[in-house]
C-alpha cells in the first residue's frame, strides 16, 4: 500500500492522500499555519520610515566598478549635530567617489548628483497642537563644508570651546576637521590644526581624556591599503569577491591632544598607545572603571579589541585581555565593527555591545564595575538571533522609555552571496536590521515585527546615528547604507511614556560636556546611569544629549551629574517630558 498525496490546502494546513481506497486527511502543524486569527489588529510599529516625507534625498555612492575594491564595502557613516544651535538635530552624511583612475562612467551605479558629503538642516516645526513636522533642507553649499574625499565616517565635538559643534570627517586618505564658525558656515582647519591623520580612518571620537576642559581627539585607523597595491580576492568557486581584512596590515591609530589654540599634538606614543593597535572600526569612550577618568574602548576587525584604561597621567594601559573584553568566548579575535557603551543592566557601570560578522554573533561584555567583563551574549538571548547577520552601527537606546536600555543594530554583509551573484544581483550584501528589547532581567527579546517594516527592509547598512531628531522624547535613528539611500527611522513608541531630557553644557564654553555621567534618581528609589556622548556605533556621531526613560513615573527626578573634570552637582525636581539644559556650576 502507499499513500499518494492528492492535495494540500495551505488555508487549513491539511493534506489529503489516498491509501488504497481510503482517503486520509492529515492536519499538520506547519510553521506559520493557523497562527493568524482573523481580525487581530496590528499594533503601531515602533519605528517608521520618514525619509521621504522629511525631504532627505541622498544616495551613497561607493564608486564600485566591478573591481571589488575593499573600501567600497565600509562606508558611510552619519552624524547628528545641532550645528546651528537652534535646538534640533541636523544631519551630516558621508559621500564617496570613484577610486583609483576609473572615471564615473565606469561606475556600476552612476551617481545622480555631485559627489560631496551633505549637511541637512533640520527645520522641525511644532504647531500649537504639538504636531511635529520634520523637514530637512540641504544646506551643504551655504555651510561651505567641502568634503569630496572618499568619506568613511564622522565625529562631532566643540574642540575650540566656542559653543558651536565642529565636525571631523574620516576618509580613505587625509581626514578633515571643519570648524563651525557659529554663523551657519564651516572652515576647513585640517592643516593648521595638524589633524590630517592620513591613511584609512573609519571611526573617531572627541574625548577630554586629560580633564583639562578641552576636547582631544582619538582617530581610529583601519588598514594599510592603497589602490595601487589592491589585492584581488576570490570565493571558493572562483568568483571575485571582497577581501577579508587579514590580507592587509593594520594601521596605527592616533591620539591627538588639544593644545587649546586650535592645534593638536599627536601624543599616541607618549600616551603609551603606539605599541598596540589593530584594524580599528569602532570607538566608544566611557569611564569603565568608575574612577572619574574617561577610558577608550577600541573594536578591531579580526584582531583583539583594546580597552585603554586612563592612568590619569596622560597615559593609557590596555587591559582588554585580562579584563575579558578583547576576544570572543573561545579566545578568538572577532571581526568587531560597531560598539557602544552604556549601563544596560542598571547596576551603575557601563557595559559593551559589539557587532560582529555572520556566524560570530554579537558580544555583550557585562562590566562588574571595575572594568572587568564577562561575555554574556548567549545568556542574554542575543547570540543566536544575531549569528546570521553582519552587524555595523549599533547603540544602546531606551526605545520605549521603560528605563531599560534596548539595543538596535543595522546589518549588511561584506562578502557576496554566491547565489545572489549568480542571479546577477550586484552588491548582494543586503540584510535587515535588528531591534532587541531589554526585558529587565538580563535578557533580550527580538522585537522583529513590533519594530516596524522599516527594520525588515534588507539594505547594506553601515553607519547609524542615534538621537531625538523630532524632540518628542524618544530616540530616532539615521542609517547610512552603502551604495544606498539615507534612511530616517522615527520612533513612535517612546513618547508614550515619561522621560527626562538633558543637555549638559560647560560653564563658560556652553559646549556639550561629552563624557559627563548622569545619575537619574527616580521616585521609586532606583537610579538610572546615563552618559553624554557622541561617539559609539560605527563611523557615526550621536545626539550628545541624555534622554532617560522614566516608565510610568511622573515624578520629576533628582539628577546628579559627574562632570568630566570630576566635580559633581545635583539638581532636584527636574522637569519631565521636556529637555532641560544643565549648566556646569548651577547645581548644588
Amino acid at each position, binding site marked *: *500500500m502507499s*499513500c499518494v498525496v492528492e492535495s494540500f490546502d495551505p488555508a487549513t494546513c491539511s493534506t489529503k492522500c489516498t491509501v488504497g481506497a481510503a482517503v486520509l486527511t492529515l492536519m499538520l502543524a506547519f510553521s506559520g499555519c493557523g497562527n493568524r486569527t482573523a481580525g487581530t489588529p496590528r499594533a503601531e510599529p515602533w519605528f517608521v520610515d520618514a525619509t521621504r516625507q522629511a525631504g532627505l534625498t541622498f544616495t551613497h555612492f561607493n564608486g564600485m566598478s566591478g573591481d571589488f575594491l575593499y573600501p567600497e564595502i565600509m562606508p558611510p557613516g552619519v552624524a547628528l549635530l545641532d550645528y546651528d544651535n537652534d535646538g534640533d538635530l541636523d544631519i551630516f552624511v558621508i559621500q564617496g567617489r570613484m577610486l583609483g583612475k576609473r572615471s564615473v562612467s565606469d561606475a556600476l551605479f552612476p551617481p545622480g548628483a555631485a559627489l560631496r558629503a551633505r549637511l541637512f538642516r533640520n527645520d522641525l516645526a511644532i504647531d500649537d497642537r504639538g504636531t511635529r513636522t520634520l523637514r530637512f533642507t540641504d544646506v551643504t553649499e551655504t555651510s561651505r563644508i567641502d568634503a569630496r574625499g572618499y568619506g568613511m565616517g564622522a565625529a562631532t565635538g566643540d574642540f575650540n570651546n566656542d559653543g558651536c559643534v565642529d565636525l571631523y570627517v574620516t576618509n580613505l586618505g587625509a581626514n578633515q576637521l571643519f570648524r563651525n564658525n557659529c554663523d551657519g558656515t564651516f572652515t576647513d582647519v585640517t592643516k593648521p590644526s595638524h589633524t590630517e591623520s592620513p591613511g584609512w580612518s573609519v571611526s573617531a571620537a572627541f574625548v577630554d581624556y586629560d580633564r583639562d576642559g578641552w576636547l582631544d581627539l582619538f582617530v581610529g585607523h583601519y588598514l594599510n591599503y592603497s589602490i595601487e*597595491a589592491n589585492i584581488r580576492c576570490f570565493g571558493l568557486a572562483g568568483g571575485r569577491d571582497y577581501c577579508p581584512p587579514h590580507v592587509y596590515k593594520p594601521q596605527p591609530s592616533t591620539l591627538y591632544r588639544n593644545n587649546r589654540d586650535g592645534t593638536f599634538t599627536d601624543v599616541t606614543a607618549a600616551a603609551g598607545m603606539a605599541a598596540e593597535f589593530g584594524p580599528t572600526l569602532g570607538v566608544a569612550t566611557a569611564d569603565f572603571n568608575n574612577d572619574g577618568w574617561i577610558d577608550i574602548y577600541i573594536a578591531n576587525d579580526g584582531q583583539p579589541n583594546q580597552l585603554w584604561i586612563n592612568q590619569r597621567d596622560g597615559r593609557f594601559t590596555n587591559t582588554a585581555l585580562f579584563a575579558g573584553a578583547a576576544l570572543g568566548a573561545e579566545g578568538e579575535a572577532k571581526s568587531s565593527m560597531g560598539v557602544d557603551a552604556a549601563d544596560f543592566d542598571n547596576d551603575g557601570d557601563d557595559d559593551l555591545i559589539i557587532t560582529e560578522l555572520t556566524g560570530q554573533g554579537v558580544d555583550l561584555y557585562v562590566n562588574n564595575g571595575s572594568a572587568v567583563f564577562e561575555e554574556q551574549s548567549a545568556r542574554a538571548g542575543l547570540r543566536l538571533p544575531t549569528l546570521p547577520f553582519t552587524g555595523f552601527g549599533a547603540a544602546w537606546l531606551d526605545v520605549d522609555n521603560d528605563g531599560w536600555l534596548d539595543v538596535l543594530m543595522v546589518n549588511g554583509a561584506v562578502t557576496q552571496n554566491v547565489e545572489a551573484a549568480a542571479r546577477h544581483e550586484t552588491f548582494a550584501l543586503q540584510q535587515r536590521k535588528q531591534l532587541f528589547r531589554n526585558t529587565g532581567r538580563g535578557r533580550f527579546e527580538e522585537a522583529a515585527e513590533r519594530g516596524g517594516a522599516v527594520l525588515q527592509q534588507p539594505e547594506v547598512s553601515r553607519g547609524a546615528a542615534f538621537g531625538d531628531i523630532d524632540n518628542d522624547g524618544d530616540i530616532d535613528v539615521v542609517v547610512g547604507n552603502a551604495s544606498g539611500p539615507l534612511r530616517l527611522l522615527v520612533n513612535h513608541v517612546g513618547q508614550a511614556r515619561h522621560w527626562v531630557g538633558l543637555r549638559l553644557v560647560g560653564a563658560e564654553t556652553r559646549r556639550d560636556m561629552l563624557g559627563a555621567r548622569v545619575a537619574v534618581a527616580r521616585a521609586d528609589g532606583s537610579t538610572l546611569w546615563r552618559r553624554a556622548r557622541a561617539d559609539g556605533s560605527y563611523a557615526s556621531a550621536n545626539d550628545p544629549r541624555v534622554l532617560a526613560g522614566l516608565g510610568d513615573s511622573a515624578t520629576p527626578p533628582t539628577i546628579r551629574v559627574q562632570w568630566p573634570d570630576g566635580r559633581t552637582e545635583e539638581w532636584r525636581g527636574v522637569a519631565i517630558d521636556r529637555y532641560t539644559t544643565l549648566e556646569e556650576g548651577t547645581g548644588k
Partner: protein
Amino acid sequence: MIARQVLAALLLAAIAGCGPSRPPRDLLHQVSLPDLARATDRVQAQLRAQYASLTEKRQTPATPPAELATAFGEMGRLFMAAEYRDAAEACLSNAQMLAPSDARWPYYLGHLHKARGDAVKSAAAFEQARALSPDDQATLVWLGNGRPEAAEPLFTHALSRDPRSVAALFGLGRAALARSDYTQAAQQLERALSLDPRAAVLQYPLAMAYRGLGETDKADAHMRARGPGEIRPPDPLMLDLESLLESPVAYEVRGARALDERDWKRAAAFFRKGIELAPAEPSMHHKLGTALYMDGDAPAAAAEFEQALRLSPHFAKAHYSLGIMHGASGRTRPAIEHLTAAVRADPTYVEARLRLADVLRSSARTAAALSQYEQAAKLDPRLPDAPFGHAMALVDLRRYQEARDRLREGVSTFSDNLAFRHALIRLLAAAPDDRVRDGHEAMRMMQDLLAREPRRYDVDEMMAMTFAELGQFGEAMTWQRDAMAGAERAGLKDVARRMADTLSRYQRRQPCRTPWRDDDVNQR
C-alpha cells in the same frame, strides 16, 4: 522547507509496514543548476558533471531511492563546497527524504545552516543526525558547540565514547566557564591541554578560568601563551567535503592549512594542484615556493619565486622571499635589489623594509638603513625590531647620544623586550662618548636586570663594564672572569679569548670603551 520534511517524514511513517514503498518524488525539492558563469571552468565542469549524473538518475524511474538519495547527496555536497547554499540545501533535504536513515544528510545540513549562521536550524539538523548516529563524536561536538544551554550532556557523552577527546573537554570547559564554574572549567581545560599541549587556543579560556578563581599568576601565564587556532573533532565527513572542490582558491586554502600544520610536502602538493588550475596566478607560485623552502629545497623554491615574478614583475612577496634567500646566502647585492623592489611595489610592506634595513646595515650602508628603519617604525610601531635596528645603526654611525635616546624610548615602549635594556646598559657603561656614559644609571638597570634574568656570560660582561665605569675595578675583574668562564662553558672559546683583552684593561684600572665586541653579532 522544514514543513515539507515533516510532512514527508510523517507520511513515510504512516505507510511503514504497508508493503513495498515508492520514494515520495512528488515531494522532492526542485533542483536546477544556478548560473555558473562566475565559477572557474573546472568548478563548472565538476558541477555540470555531477548534475548530469543526478539528472540521469532522476529521469530513470527504476532508480532505487537509496541510489537517488546518494545522487542528491553528492550534488548537495558539491554545491555546499562551492557555496551555493540554497541549491545545496534543496539537494541535501531531498537526500534526507529519500534515505531518512542515513545520518550523513542531516549532518551536512547541520553544517550548512551553521555556515549561514542559523543556529536553530543547525541544531535541529544535528539532532536528526544524532538520532541516527548517537555516538558520533563530530555530531555530538558540533551540536554541543551550537547549543550552549544544552551542551554539557552532549560533551559528556562524547567524552564517554572517547576519553581523549580534546574537543569534548574543550566544550565542557567552555560550558563550565559560561555558568561561572571556574574550578570545573580549569579542570576540564587543563586535561585538554595535557592531551594537546600545542593547542594554544585552549590558553585563553583557561586564563579566564584562573581569573575567575583569583589565581592571577596562572591567568597571566596562560594568557601569554594564548594563540589562534581551532579545535575540531575528528570529522571525516567535513574533511571529505572540503577536499571536493577543484578550484585554485580551494587548493590554496588546503595548502595554507597544511602550512599551518607544518606539513610542507602536503602543502606543496596542494599548491601544485592550484597551479595546474591557475598557472598564471603569481601568488600560487609564491606559496609553492614557500612550502618548498620550508621543506629544505631552496633551489626549487627560488625557481617558483622567479616564476611568480615573470608572471607579475612587481609582486612584492616574491621579491621579498628572494631577498631573504639571497641575504641568508650572503649574496648582498641581489638581496638589496629584491628587497628594494618589494618596498617599491608595496611601500607599506614592513617586513621587507626591516629586512632591507638589516641587509643595508650589515653591508655598511648604514645611512640608507637608518631611513628604512625609521619608516618601518612609523608603519608599525608595534614591532621592536625597527626601533632597535635604528638604534644600532646610530651606534654604527657613532651617533651615540641619539642611539641612547632611541634605546631609552624602546625600554619604555617595549618594557618586556630585554634587548633594549642590554643595549642601553652597554652604551651607558662603555660608550666612547663622555656625554652618553652614566655608570649609575647603568648600575640601576643592571640591578633590575639581574632580578629578571639568570646570569649568563653576556650579562656578566655587562656588569663588569658597569663596575669598571664606576671605578670599581676589583668587582669588574671578578665579573669579567665569571663572564669568561661562562663563555668557555658555552663552548665560545674565541669569545672568552677576546674578553681577556678587556680583563687586561680592568687590571690596568682602565674602563671599557667598546660597548660591543666585534664578534657580538647576536647583540647588535
